[in-house]
């Protein structure tokens, strides 16, 4: 009994020290953690392969695979159509303004998702590429349907991606139709909200949301999602909107990291 009390006391002291450590921390990134993930990356890959092979040996595996490939192809073509729409609307707008600007092309590195966040607060994924695969910190991550997030911690063989649905994520975005800007913030329930939309904006459900290209992390005109609901909170000077992400981020398997 006495032994147990002293053990509890020791652990409580450790917890008090850790609480002090948390309260003095300034960032959610940690070199210690990404080193641990690097060490565990081969086991994560093993666990991921196990899960994938389990899915494959289920009945109708061949049809499932074909369906997946065709769906991926449709997604890719849809994305191309959306990109062409953006290019076309940009072209019209820029011609009108007689101020043509070239959008910066970017190359991507494909990576496989090998781990997911086991927390109900944060939303992140672990990918199988790190510094050795050319991944750099604070670069945007995409899927075939649209924006996924950004690289936050980079190890040698693995990296952690902060998804756009994480409460710590903030992305400069705009409504594609009327070019009204705002900031996209994540929520713990895996949804996003666009805040700081001007009160006189005619934003409506169904409007497509794209990246605004402010800053150096996210390139311009990447599809983010679409408006589900517009809210006007009493006493606020701005509107906000609930956004459905273009990609179902809870079921991601492969991503593309901008080089």
């Amino acid at each position, binding site marked *: 009994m006495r032994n147990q009390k002293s053990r509890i006391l020791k652990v409580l002291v450790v917890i008090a020290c850790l609480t002090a450590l948390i309260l003095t921390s300034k960032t959610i990134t940690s070199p210690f953690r990404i080193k641990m*993930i690097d060490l565990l990356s081969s086991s994560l890959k093993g666990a991921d392969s196990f899960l994938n092979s389990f899915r494959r040996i289920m009945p109708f595996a061949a049809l499932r695979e074909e369906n997946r490939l065709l769906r991926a192809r449709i997604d890719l073509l849809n994305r191309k159509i959306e990109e062409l729409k953006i290019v076309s609307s940009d072209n019209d707008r820029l011609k009108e303004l007689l101020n043509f600007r070239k959008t910066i092309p970017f190359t991507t590195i494909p990576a496989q998702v090998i781990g997911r966040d086991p*927390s109900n607060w944060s939303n*992140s994924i672990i990918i199988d590429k790190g510094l050795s695969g050319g991944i750099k910190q604070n670069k945007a991550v995409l899927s075939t349907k649209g924006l996924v997030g950004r690289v936050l911690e980079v190890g040698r063989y693995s990296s952690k991606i902060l998804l756009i649905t*994480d409460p710590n994520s903030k992305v400069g975005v705009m409504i594609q139709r009327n070019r009204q800007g705002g900031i996209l913030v994540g929520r*713990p329930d895996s949804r996003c909200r666009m805040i700081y939309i001007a009160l006189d904006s005619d934003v409506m459900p169904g409007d497509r949301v794209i990246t605004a290209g402010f800053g150096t992390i996210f390139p311009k005109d990447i599809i983010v999602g679409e408006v589900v609901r517009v809210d006007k909170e009493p006493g606020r000077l701005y509107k906000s909107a609930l956004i459905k992400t273009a990609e179902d981020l*809870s079921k991601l398997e492969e991503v593309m990291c901008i080089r």
Partner: protein
Amino acid sequence: MYKITRFQIYLVLLIALFLQGSVVNYVKIMGSGPDLLLMIVIFFGLFLGPAAGLESGFVAGFLRDIFALDFLWINAVILALSGFIVGVINTQFFKESKRADFIFVLVFTALSMSLHYLIVSALVNSIALDFWDFFISSAIPTAVYTGLVSVPVYVKLLDIYHLKEAEDYL
């Protein structure tokens, strides 16, 4: 009395971590899924006492800290405290009742998530989510979901650990 070893406790925590990072993503409803790790920690606190609750909470939280993108140690502290408090007040409740277990898990899930929110919002000034919005849209659905999942899981764990009679509990 059946003796539960550390290895058995850690094994269950590892299985819960694996399921939390894989299967739970596919069974989320409106973006909320059950918190399996917290549910297991509450089980150990409830049936094995404060020391087991504290230790299992600390280990489960540390594992979560490694894989999540959050302030390091925050989950270790919150889960250890949850396990410890559940262990300290476990004698006040009628643990054999499934309804009492459900309410216990529900309340502690909501409390630990709220504590997480309060710590993070104290550290990050720019968090664009107010407490009630978070509580209604995230904490409550997760707490209810975790509570519902805990009912069959606790029955199975009690069976696995041979905790069938009141004298087997701490």
